[in-house]
């Protein structure tokens, strides 16, 4: 029990007034002669027990009356199971407006149901509460109730995916930091199993996690395009989605022109390949489409590719056998041609031409090679031998994880933007103008890369794209679109935006999975029970009216006892 005006409880000291008055009144009674004292003594003797009880009863009634009135003035809040106000509470409402919330199930958008519940949670708050609204964009919105209601009303499905476990942990920490009696996190989500499959929220004690349960019934079947990438003149479209989906027809378009169709098989992980028509040199964009279903957001995904003539490559002195072999393979596949546009070697010669340079096998030549680099104006040089480690690269995905056993540290004055791959956080592959520097020789004595399947694609990327300054096609989460990166007048790369493929799986999480993600104390509740449990931990009703009624009853009883028992 708590009180709205706890200072009023100081008035409880007044409860001693009846007892004090009783004691004070007894001290100096006036003295009067009364001849029939024998009648009086007899009366008192006969009434002594009754009077004692009466005095005790009156004392208790008057003391209780004061106590009850003081308690009523303090406005006590008592726990109630339904209705009533609640104690000041820190609340985070997680409204999961990730792309899957845009699904329409049984004719009703999922987000509408979530929004109604979020609105009810916010509307039930009072001025004494601290409330935040957390959406799929990850921004925690604070402010007044009306502002948050307006935010909830204006929410639309976002293109960003929400990691629910992470969001719940964030929200729990936020409310836990507030010095308020109540701490709750309301999770209003479609509870996709894919949103809970990773991670587990570390929820502090005392924070209640209430989650709205998914509607009963079978999960909505949905197919979505997980990815669309171009390779070898064809676009490969991966289709994903909820179990039980029918075979999905995939349409590929370039601009407004349909260039192919294919039927993706049922089940997860299905992929189709659609051959693209030959295009002129340059960057091209297209899109893969599915028939409309419950979730429209994942029915379209753009893709982009670059059409360029094969680089004319020559193996320079000291290039080694592995490079020679790789170039031979690429030449057979018409990925490179004969010529000296790009030279792969260990000591760059001349001041022009594109070079892919690896350190010389003989350490005695390292100084000469560094001087040659300096002469070309390359701000990088080979330094002391570095420690072994795996390769890390975001630009050239094929080589990530390959082991490097021998290398030279690359030292330079240029920024990190030239670093394309690292080993132990030290540059291993850098680009400076027309020169690309490797920290290791492409030899199995230095790195396992030449023995890996990714070696030939790596060499392909080096000579056709990296040394030319063109970046790879990036993939990012966002509104389906293509953004090109330009350097001067040249387009050097592109990023394809689309929604996270996991959003296509509308299968709700099982209670066990929710418990594993949010903690065993989390409650997954139907709409009705969610409404009942909202603020239930701190729900209080003002008991002052009841106490005042009790005070009236006590006063009436006191009056009755005082008059009727004379």
């Amino acid at each position, binding site marked *: 029990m708590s009180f709205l005006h706890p200072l009023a409880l100081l008035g409880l000291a007044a409860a001693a007034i009846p007892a004090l008055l009783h004691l004070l009144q007894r001290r100096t009674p006036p003295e009067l*002669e009364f001849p029939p004292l024998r009648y009086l003594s007899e009366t008192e003797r006969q009434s002594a027990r009754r009077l004692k009880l009466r005095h005790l009863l009156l004392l208790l009634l008057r003391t209780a009356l004061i106590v009850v009135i003081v308690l009523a003035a303090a406005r006590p809040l008592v726990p109630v199971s339904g209705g009533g106000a609640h104690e000041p509470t820190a609340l985070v409402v997680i409204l999961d407006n990730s792309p899957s919330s845009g699904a329409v199930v049984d004719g009703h958008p999922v987000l509408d149901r979530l929004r109604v519940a979020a609105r009810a949670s916010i509307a039930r708050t009072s001025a004494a509460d601290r409330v935040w609204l957390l959406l799929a964009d990850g921004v925690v919105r604070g402010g007044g109730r009306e502002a948050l209601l307006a935010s909830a009303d204006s929410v639309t499905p976002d293109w960003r995916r929400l990691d629910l476990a992470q969001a719940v942990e964030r929200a729990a920490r936020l409310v836990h930091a507030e010095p308020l009696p109540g701490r709750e996190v309301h999770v209003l989500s479609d509870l996709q199993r894919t949103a809970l499959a990773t991670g587990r929220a570390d929820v502090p004690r005392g924070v209640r996690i209430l989650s709205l349960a998914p509607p009963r019934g079978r999960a909505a079947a949905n197919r979505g395009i997980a990815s669309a990438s171009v390779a070898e003149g064809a676009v490969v479209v991966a289709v994903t989605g909820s179990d039980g989906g029918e075979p999905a027809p995939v349409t590929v378009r370039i601009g407004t022109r349909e260039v192919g169709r294919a039927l993706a098989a049922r089940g997860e992980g299905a992929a189709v390949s659609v051959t693209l028509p030959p295009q002129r040199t340059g960057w091209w964009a297209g899109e893969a489409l599915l028939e409309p279903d419950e979730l429209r957001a994942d029915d379209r995904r753009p893709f982009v590719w670059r059409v360029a003539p094969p680089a004319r490559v020559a193996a320079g002195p000291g290039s080694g056998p592995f490079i020679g072999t790789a170039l031979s393979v690429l030449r057979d596949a018409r990925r490179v041609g004969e010529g000296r546009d790009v030279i792969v070697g260990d000591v760059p010669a001349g001041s022009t031409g594109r070079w892919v340079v690896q350190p010389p096998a003989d350490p005695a030549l390292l100084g000469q090679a560094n001087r040659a680099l300096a002469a070309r104006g390359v701000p990088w040089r080979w330094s002391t031998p570095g420690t072994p480690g795996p390769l890390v690269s975001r630009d050239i995905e094929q080589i990530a994880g390959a082991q490097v056993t021998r290398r030279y540290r690359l030292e330079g004055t240029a920024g990190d933007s030239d670093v394309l791959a690292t080993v132990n956080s030290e540059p291993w592959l850098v680009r400076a103008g027309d020169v690309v520097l490797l920290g290791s020789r492409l030899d199995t004595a230095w790195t396992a890369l030449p023995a890996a399947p990714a070696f030939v694609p790596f060499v392909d990327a080096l000579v056709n794209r990296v040394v030319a300054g063109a970046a790879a096609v990036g993939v990012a989460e966002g509104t389906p679109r293509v953004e090109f990166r330009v350097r001067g007048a040249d387009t050097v790369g592109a990023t394809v935006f689309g929604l996270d493929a996991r959003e296509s799986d509308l299968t709700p999480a099982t209670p066990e999975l929710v418990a594993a993600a949010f903690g065993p104390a989390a409650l997954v509740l139907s709409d009705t029970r969610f409404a009942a449990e909202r603020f239930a931990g701190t729900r209080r009703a003002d008991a002052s009216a009841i106490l005042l009624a009790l005070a009236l009853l006590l006063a009436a009883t006191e009056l009755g006892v005082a008059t009727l028992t004379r």
Partner: protein
Amino acid sequence: MPAATRVDLLDPADVARLGGIEIVAEGVVEGFLAGLHRSPFRGFSVEFTEHRAYQPGDELRYLDWRILARSDRLFVKQFEEETNLRAMILVDASRSMAWRGAPERLTKRAYADRLAAALALILLRQRDATGLVTFDEEVRQVIPARVKAGQWTRLVRGLLDTPDGRGTAAHAALQRLTALLARRGLVVLISDLLFDRELALAALRYLRHRGHQVIVFHLMDPAEVELAGPPEVRFTDPESPASVVVRPRELARAYAETVQREVAAWRTACRRHGIAYHHVQTDLPFGMALRLLT
């Protein structure tokens, strides 16, 4: 005399302001007798029994003139007893009798004196021998019953000369009175009866046994009947060191019941032994108190 101006029906305190006991008593008796058609004590004095034939020497005043007129024969009226009644009035002069519950009322003693004086005047006017005894712990005044002239004045003087006593040991005084009242007659006790009931009744029973007719006037101030006072008060007994602290409002009802029980007990005990008992409050007009005897 119109009822509105009859002294016997006025408030006792107002009547007392008219003058001394003699004046008050005479006024009360005049008014009282004027309101009656017959003497209240007729049965005690002269009681007609039968007629007999006139014989020479009989007093002519006892001739029955009506029979003579109807039958032309002479008869005289004969009475059972022609001697005067001997009445003794016992007035309690104890300390408790000197109390009144309000300044505008008479003390019980003052009321008793005036009631006794009026009663004595009535009796003496009927030629009944009337005496007076005042007592508290001891017998203070004894005026033997006489019917001679000036007796009433002596009785009044006896009342005035008796100061307020201290305690009350009525049974001792009453026992002594039994020895004084050798010849049977009427005994009127005027007291607040604040003494041991059984002992007092034993003395009164003895008087009855000796053939006396006994009348008891139980005087109480209205404040003794209905308990009132400050919220909390220490009441002390004027005749003893006893005291008790009470809240009058709490005990009022129970006290009234106790008083009623006490009065009922006195009335029952007196009736059982042939004693006339009258409960009189000191705000009762004297005439009304005297009328209780009729």
